[in-house]
């Protein structure tokens, strides 16, 4: 491979707006987002176009901005399409910076599994969300009309095709056993505020979640009552051990380190560390299922 000289590297960095740390500058991001915008939408005209960064996303979606910031939001473009006698159509394209960010923010509010658009989509009357690569896209027209629905689908297809790559599902999500998994229950995150997604676990960040960790919640239907599985992948085994010890002290009443314990309500909870992966199981109705789940996850654990 031909070596790139220092001068050549500087020229490349200037050309592509790559910062010394390797981060892509906002100018490049803006160009990237522009490339995803459809040229036109027959019958509709663009009434408004705005761009937002982490510093001013509040101006657009106020408290909702925190959700996107918690998934590493980089930049977004927002367009409002107008057509007489139709509801305004809002198109929002978020550059989340990483595939994990786009996938995570998509999983945050999905209720069903659908692969009509991008790498996963959810449609409800007047509202479509989908993700692909590092982008999360939302289209909304309320109340829905046949014309608005058609426009939403047309725009979605164009944007999907304009994104050239598929993103890679985060490692921790790929560790989820498939048997009895409720696919639409998967919630990927790394900000501690989303730890209480399915029930109240802890107000403190006892699991030491941050941007270096990967966490996922999922439900399993071994019985009528769901079993909840939490996986957290840490950058090192020692980081996982520290989190395990702190969480066990707080959550589990057992003084020993047995991985499975029966709660006062008769359900089963479990906590086990496998290398740099921490596995939590909650509200299971069947201890054998807990044991099997623990073993299967730990068999699949990633390399140290």
């Amino acid at each position: 491979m031909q070596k790139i000289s220092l001068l050549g590297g500087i020229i490349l960095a200037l050309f592509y707006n790559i910062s010394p740390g390797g981060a892509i500058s906002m100018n490049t991001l803006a160009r990237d987002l522009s490339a995803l915008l459809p040229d036109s939408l027959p019958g509709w005209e663009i009434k408004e176009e705005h761009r937002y960064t982490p510093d001013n996303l509040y101006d657009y979606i106020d408290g909702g901005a925190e959700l996107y910031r918690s998934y590493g939001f980089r930049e977004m473009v927002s367009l409002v399409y107008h057509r007489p006698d139709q509801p305004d159509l809002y198109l929002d394209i978020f550059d989340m910076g990483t595939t994990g960010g786009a996938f995570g923010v998509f999983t945050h509010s999905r209720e069903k599994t659908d692969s009509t658009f991008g790498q996963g989509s959810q449609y409800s009357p007047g509202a479509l969300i989908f993700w692909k690569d590092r982008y999360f896209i939302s289209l909304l027209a309320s109340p829905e009309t046949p014309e608005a629905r058609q426009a939403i689908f047309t725009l979605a297809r164009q944007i999907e095709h304009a994104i050239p790559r598929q993103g890679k599902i985060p490692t921790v999500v790929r560790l989820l056993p498939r048997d009895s998994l409720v696919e639409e229950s998967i919630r990927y995150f790394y900000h501690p505020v989303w730890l209480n997604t399915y029930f109240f676990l802890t107000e403190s960040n006892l699991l030491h979640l941050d941007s270096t960790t990967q966490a996922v919640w999922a439900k399993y239907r071994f019985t009528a009552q769901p079993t909840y599985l939490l996986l957290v992948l840490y950058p090192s085994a020692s980081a996982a051990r520290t989190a395990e010890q702190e969480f066990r002290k707080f959550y589990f009443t057992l003084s020993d380190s047995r991985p499975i314990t029966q709660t006062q309500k008769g359900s089963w909870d479990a906590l086990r560390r496998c290398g740099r992966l921490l596995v939590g199981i909650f509200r299971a109705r069947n201890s054998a299922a807990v044991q099997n789940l623990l073993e299967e996850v730990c068999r699949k654990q990633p390399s140290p």
Partner: protein
Amino acid sequence: MKKQHPRMKRRAFLKQGSLALGGTLLFGLPGNSIPTPHPKKTRVVLIRHPEVLDKLNRPRAEIVQEMIDRAVVALTGSTSIQQAWQQIVRPEDTVGIKSNVWRFLPTPAELEEAVVKRVREVGVAAEKISVNDRTVLRDPIFRNATALINMRPLRTHYWAGVGSLIKNYIMFVPNPSDYHPDTCADLATIWKLPHVRGRTRLNVLVMFTPLFHGQGPHHFSPQYIWPYRGLLVGFDPVAVDSVGVRILQAKRREYFGEERPLNPPPKHIFLADTRHHLGTADPAKIDLIKLGWEEGCLI
């Protein structure tokens, strides 16, 4: 306000509302002081009407007027609509009506008009009344307000758990995102700022079509609203929000068929009680008066 409202004709005495009161929670209004709720229990009125929305979920103005009047009569323990509103504001007041303009679920104009009408009938001059949301800090009426009326629809919210009455005052600070840490835990402190403290005379949580779940950046999908057709009215914003949250949670259980807690939990409501002592969130300390339509009440 520019509109002149006709002098209110004395409406027929609202039997059900007043009878439900039992004569409690009567209070005076010395000077510009705030009505003080019953020391033991906080009264919250839930009123519902099956016909308040048309087929497109648009509020019917005359029924909205009837509902808010009946709720205020019940809340204040008055014997007439006129007397009830006289306990909310006084003729010399400068009145800021804090609404909410969120495009998908704003405070209904019909409710704003209904309240403005009654405030005018008490004797407050039109030029001393303002309805505002985003620019309250630059609004001279709000800057000089002696009385605030707080009205907004209830909805789930990505960061605060719910968009509540307590949260509706976030526009009273220049930089709302300063109150976002810990999922908006300390929103109640806004209510203690000098230009806000002690001025709120009435809280109305609009439950016509609450949003019980959200998706996408706008946290809105028509799929997740339902025609509850109600208003929650009270003096204590914490108590009213607390009742509203219980209704939302009941709806989520009903819709999803399982426990689906609000995420993140609306801790700002409960901390408004336990940490900031703004009011009470404890259902045992709330006297919930239910009026009107009962079907699908959820509480």
